[in-house]
């Protein structure tokens, strides 16, 4: 393995003019005793250099498995992977680990949710950062040390020289996440996956880390996939958003369009279930009834129909395809989209009947409505 070319999955066939990342109909199914879990079930999107895609969904929606499928970080047994992941024009699905090793770290890297468990507790921080510098960039000891130092300062860690000789447990959660980011950025990847990077952190530290990621991304012209359950986190910091539900992308749109003109009832429901700061206190929250479906036996029609207040007979039987909306780049998966005449009609029909076609009670709750009778 004496390749001197920095990065590059195969060294050949890579086209710098191609889209950085093109994901085509990717499927990841897990075989379990109870049946096949369709964790990711046909997701496609493209991502350009320097752009940010937000992937939003509840736990169990498949957002984490999606990012791991793209990176090829899945167990080898009992997994069915289908579809294509073109990285700079080359399909990297099914590449052997020896070749993926040149992609991981140097071309794409990942920042995980929990900074404590994603660092090695018995290795000094310096060693963990320089590991990939030796491996991918073939640096000598002095260069690697200097680069590690520069990386730690660039992620805003005070006294970097001293930190290089410390262990992860000697740092706070926010500082550890900065170290994880420094490690991910060490070899200058073109694509960064951030999988719930701030969920384990406090709100003021969350703002610091999100600002840091944004600043580093701009400086390095790096593409980023930001996976989160919090629509608030992606709202101001992404170019596009893909909303996932039960293993599928149910709405994909440029960020401003998604918020101003959402079509998918699930996106609408998700947004209205978040308590907002501008609501007066004791505002009754609109809830999504029930729970996400079982991914072994997903519902036959639309997967959101059993919880949807717009649901009609058709939704229970026919699965909607991804439909293009008027705005370019905006796609959704719904027969009765929010704000459309059909959607309005479906909702008023359900309101009149008091329930949706799947039996979910539908009542008119004006938002925001203050709870009557507060003490």
């Amino acid at each position, binding site marked *: 393995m004496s390749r001197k070319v920095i990065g590059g999955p195969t060294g050949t066939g890579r086209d710098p003019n191609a889209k950085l990342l093109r994901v085509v109909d990717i499927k990841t199914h897990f075989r379990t005793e109870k049946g096949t879990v369709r964790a990711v079930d046909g997701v496609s999107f493209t991502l350009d250099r320097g752009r940010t895609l937000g992937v939003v969904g509840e736990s169990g929606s498949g957002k984490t498995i999606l990012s791991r499928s793209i990176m090829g970080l899945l167990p080898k047994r009992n997994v069915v992977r289908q579809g294509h992941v073109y990285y700079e024009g080359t399909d990297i699905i099914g590449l052997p680990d020896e070749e993926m090793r040149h992609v991981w770290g140097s071309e794409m890297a990942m920042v995980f949710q929990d900074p404590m468990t994603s660092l090695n507790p018995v290795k000094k921080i310096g060693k963990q950062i320089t590991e990939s510098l030796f491996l991918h960039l073939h640096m000598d000891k002095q260069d690697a040390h200097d680069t590690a130092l520069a990386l730690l300062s660039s*992620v805003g860690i005070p006294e970097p020289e001293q930190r290089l000789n410390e262990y992860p447990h000697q740092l706070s959660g926010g500082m550890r996440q900065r170290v994880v980011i420094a490690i991910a950025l060490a070899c200058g990847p073109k694509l960064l996956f951030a999988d719930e990077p701030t969920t384990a952190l406090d709100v003021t530290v969350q703002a610091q880390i999100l600002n840091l990621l944004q600043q580093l991304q701009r400086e390095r012209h790096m593409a980023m996939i930001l996976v989160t359950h919090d629509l608030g986190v992606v*709202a*101001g910091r992404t170019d596009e958003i893909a909303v996932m539900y039960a293993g599928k992308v149910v709405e994909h749109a440029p960020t401003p369009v998604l918020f101003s003109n959402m079509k998918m009832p699930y996106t609408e429901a998700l947004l209205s279930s*978040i*308590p907002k700061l501008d609501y007066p*206190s004791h505002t009754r929250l*609109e809830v*999504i*009834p029930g729970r996400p479906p079982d991914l072994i036996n997903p519902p036959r029609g639309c997967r959101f129909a059993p919880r949807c207040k717009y649901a009609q007979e058709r939704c229970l039987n026919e699965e909607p395809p991804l439909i293009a909306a008027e705005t370019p780049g905006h796609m959704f998966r719904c027969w009765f989209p929010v704000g459309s005449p059909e959607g309005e009609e479906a909702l008023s029909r359900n309101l009149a009947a008091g329930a949706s076609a799947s039996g979910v009670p539908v009542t008119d709750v004006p938002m925001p409505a203050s*709870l009557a009778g507060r003490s």
Partner: protein
Amino acid sequence: MAGSGTEHLRPAGDTLLRAENLVVEFPVGRTGLKVHAVSDVSIDVRAGETLGLVGESGCGKSTTGRAIMQLPRPTSGRVLFDGHDLVTLPSSELRRLRPEMQMIFQDPISSLNPRRKVSQIVAEPLRIWKRAAGDQLDKIVETTLENVGIDPAAAWDRRPHQFSGGQCQRICIARALVLNPKLIICDEPVSALDVSVQAQILNLLEEMKAQYNLTLIFIAHDLAVVKNVSDRVAVMYLGKLCEVAPPDELYARPAHPYTEALLRSIPVPDPSIRPGEEGTLGGEIPSPVAPPSGCRFRTRCPRVQDMCAQVEPKMRQIGLGHYVACHFPLDAIGPKPGAAQLAQQMNAMTSPTTRRPVPPKLVTPPVSGVSASAPPKPAG
């Protein structure tokens, strides 16, 4: 902030719970050092009220909740509950008061015994206190489960692992309600749940509060969640109280620089608001083993002055029900809607001496050494 004082407390006869000057300290090994988890915190709750307690992790909000429950007993201070001082009450008498005060914890799955059936879990408090037996006991358990939205027939013989996190939290709520308590302390009850389930649980807590005439202390780090459920909000930082106010007032006109920074850090689900660097708090919460002198927030405060290192700010009133512990609070009476009305109410309610003029705004950042505090570390 990070101040002490009891000016924000209401008359003792008026409140169901009144904790005065709570101090909780833990020893650090055999070093002789102490973790100052809670330092002189006073809070009170009226019957039927929800008090929201917010702050970042490590600020002592959970410890405050536990100190009120005497789990463990605080190092010093008084906790008056329904006329009894819990801190000095003998254990046997304290035990007799326990059914009145219940707690709901953050992780619903690990706070339920995995080997018990749901019906046993919810019935256990009734059995211990011999409140009911036989059919009557089953009936109470059934009604309580129904009230929290769990189908008693389906859940009866099942165990916690067969339920989702949201359902487990409903079972925890049923267990807390079954003895008809007066006070429930909810310690981060929704932070382990998904947003859609979080909304279900928050609505359920509001419904149960009305149905069972509950008084709640709601501990959480999410300011939007706390605003939604509370009648009064107390902001904590590093074992001290910063600000106490009614939620709508606190969020519209935060007076403490820490409250303002917290509010600004919340990601807003609106793409037209681009989160910026400005207003983001730099640095991290200092160690509670050796907290800063004076105001504990001064090491990260954008308005810090020499005085903040020497004199600890005390709670003082700056508006109707609005108290702050800060030497240099933000202009609490800004040109915002409702300000004129508030000023009117204030003039009617308080003497002018309780309002101190706001000192001129700082222009130059303090130089370290002069301010006696290290400048906050840059965020990026």
